[in-house]
């Protein structure tokens, strides 16, 4: 039976691979004395077009810190990759592999690089005492460090984004008092991510009197004729597009198809990259988007990367035309945040690799001032952030940018989200979560975490 021989060979190959592969790599010490910073990747699957430039930016910045600056205070950063294809299960395997360090290098912080994995790790990470750090796209309620000591939705959340969009529309209308009667339609990806802005927009609409219209688009959003006819029928003045992937170019094209003016569509932070506008061609010219991760190459840190990494052939990018795009710069920003976190921790604990408890302390005391940002050369790229135990977001500002047909042009400076408006609602959510899960709420900054 020939089948049996092939299969036996296959079985043996699998078994050897298993024995080889899962032997405990954490015991070895090939990377002793280095700081582990595991990089979860999505180089395949539907997210890959954004994943590849993003990982390019992240790797390039870390490579620059390691090779040009000689590490963070001399401590090299070790960045093994783990491909998830955006699947939560693969992500959990990666988390389990790296959470207690790898090949002698300890873990300080863990980045899931996926909202789904971020949510899946909410409980696990608290039990394991691993700080999970997700810039942009984290859960708004996790701002409350008293209930979520190990979750850090740094920089930005969707609630702030909703208030920034309303603020911009108010500016264009000539003040918040002119918002009465304005119709704002939110076209959202029908998922937890998409529905996240329903509640803040209802609060904002109540406060400022604009009409709040919510229209869902089923995943993946490759057909939107019906939804755009609805928008037209409702006579909407503005559209807030909270899309994902293919939904974005289709939305822009379909808007043109029904004759809705493209310069009155404001995209979400995940609807505002080159990959969202370029496939829509001429229809996208004039399209607006919220940008927490500004694109462009005329930041000092990017010029340095160009000189030391891109031009010397050390870049992770195969296609260097991605340099300076939205997702590349997002990667650089994430790299900067990680490195600054290590720096903050090292100031307190000494110039050595940090463990997860020290990483948690470092994230909770991260203070990125305008001066420090200028010293890194990232003025205009990163907005100032100050994290405290009561506020794990620490930022909440973004710019509005416009697509000119071949690149993005910022229209505003940093706009601050109205986080005070939502504070009580979100706090209540966090506290009721604590109650449901029986979590003891931290009473002071230094209180021990259970």
């Amino acid at each position: 039976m020939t089948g049996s021989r092939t299969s036996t060979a296959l079985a043996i190959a699998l078994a050897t691979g298993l024995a080889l592969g899962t032997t405990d790599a954490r015991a070895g010490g090939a990377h002793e004395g280095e700081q582990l910073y595991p990089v979860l990747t999505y180089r395949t699957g539907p997210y890959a077009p954004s994943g590849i430039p993003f990982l390019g930016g992240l790797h390039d910045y870390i490579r620059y810190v390691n090779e040009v600056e000689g590490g963070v205070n001399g401590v090299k950063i070790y960045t093994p990759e783990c491909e998830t294809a955006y699947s939560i299960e693969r992500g959990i395997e990666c988390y389990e592999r790296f959470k207690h360090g790898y090949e002698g290098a300890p873990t300080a912080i863990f980045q899931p690089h996926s909202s789904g994995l971020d949510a899946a790790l909410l409980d696990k990470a608290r039990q394991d005492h691993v700080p999970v750090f997700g810039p942009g796209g984290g859960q708004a309620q996790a701002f409350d460090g008293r209930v979520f000591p190990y979750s850090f939705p740094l920089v930005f959340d969707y609630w702030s984004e909703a208030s920034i969009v309303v603020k911009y529309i108010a500016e264009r209308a000539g003040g918040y008092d002119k918002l009465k009667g304005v119709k704002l339609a939110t076209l959202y990806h029908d998922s937890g991510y998409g529905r996240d802005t329903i509640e803040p927009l209802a609060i904002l609409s109540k406060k400022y009197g604009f009409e709040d219209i919510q229209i869902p688009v089923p995943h993946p959003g490759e057909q939107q004729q019906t939804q755009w006819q609805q928008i037209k029928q409702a006579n909407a003045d503005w559209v807030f597009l909270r899309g994902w992937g293919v939904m974005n170019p289709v939305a822009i094209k379909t808007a043109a198809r029904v004759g809705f003016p493209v310069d009155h569509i404001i995209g979400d932070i995940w609807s505002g990259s080159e990959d969202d506008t370029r496939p829509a061609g001429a229809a996208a010219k004039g399209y607006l988007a919220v940008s927490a991760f500004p694109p462009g190459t005329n930041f000092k840190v990017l010029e340095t990367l160009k000189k030391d990494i891109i031009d010397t052939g050390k870049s992770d990018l195969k296609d260097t035309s991605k340099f300076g795009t939205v997702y590349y710069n997002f990667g650089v920003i994430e790299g900067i945040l990680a490195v600054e976190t290590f720096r903050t921790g090292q100031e307190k604990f000494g110039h050595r690799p940090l463990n997860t408890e020290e990483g948690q302390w470092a994230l909770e005391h991260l203070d990125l001032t305008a001066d420090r940002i200028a010293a890194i050369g990232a003025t205009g790229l990163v907005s100032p952030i100050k994290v405290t135990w009561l506020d794990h977001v620490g930022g909440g500002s973004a710019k509005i940018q416009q697509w000119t047909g071949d690149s993005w042009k910022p229209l505003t400076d940093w706009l601050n989200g109205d986080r005070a408006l939502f504070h009580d609602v979100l706090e209540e959510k966090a506290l009721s979560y604590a109650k449901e899960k029986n979590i003891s709420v931290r009473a002071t900054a230094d209180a021990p975490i259970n």
Partner: protein
Amino acid sequence: MHYFLVILTSGLLAGIMYAMVAIGFVLIYKASGVFNFAQGSLVLFAALSFVTLTEHGLPFWAAFLVTSLMMVVAAVIIERLVLRPLVDRSPLTLFMATLGLSFVIEGLAQLLMGTDVHQLDLGIDDVPTNFLGLELSQFDLFASAVAIVLVAVLSLVFGRTRIGISLRGVADDTLAAQSIGIRLPTIWRVVWSVSGVVALVAGLLWGARQGVQFSLTMVVLKAMPVLIIGGFSSIPGAIVGGLLVGASESLADIYLGPLLAGGAVSNWFAYMLAVGFLLVRPSGLFGDRTIERV
């Protein structure tokens, strides 16, 4: 009333796009009884190859021809390596094999041609023009015309030519067809090639709307209820099924969605509609009625 008509037309137009994908399934199912889940990957592979070629300077028709040839080669390889060893196995096993095949094709496409999102401009305007009081775009009219031509050509090919008649023979009774000398592997190769070319056409139309990217593989999910309603083995059924699914899900999103928690209902509505149809006509609107013997 006008609004209703607008929604109805936009649904029907979407339905034509679904039908384009469904036709590829029907061809393969008819000839080999395989529910080919890899059709979506073929759509991606074809569109990506086409865009890559045009970006390297090939003119439209040359790129179309070269890509079609690639799809023929792919069909021959698939027939030899996957279908032939699995002949006479359960439909579910074949379905699973095409799932495995879709991993291979997707991996290969991204390995060779990258994961970038490509713009595809067919040079046809997609802005509203007044057509019989309804706002249609030239692109909509073009897509509909392509669908009609495709169905006409396929009906001619499979109704009049020798190979088409052999195909129908195979679909009716595989054993009898083989016994009168019809070579099954040849039929399979031809059918998979043709559905590869259909995948290319579908990929170009879809790609022009949404950009050529990985998400093209997801159009299969939309094609499935179309197939169930139209019947797995009927080309006109695919068109009618597509129109029905497109129209009803558009109307459901507008009129049913708000009644049910405001969510978008179109993803499951089409399937429920399909089940409803099945209970009345167990083999689809146009499907072959299978006769069971004891």
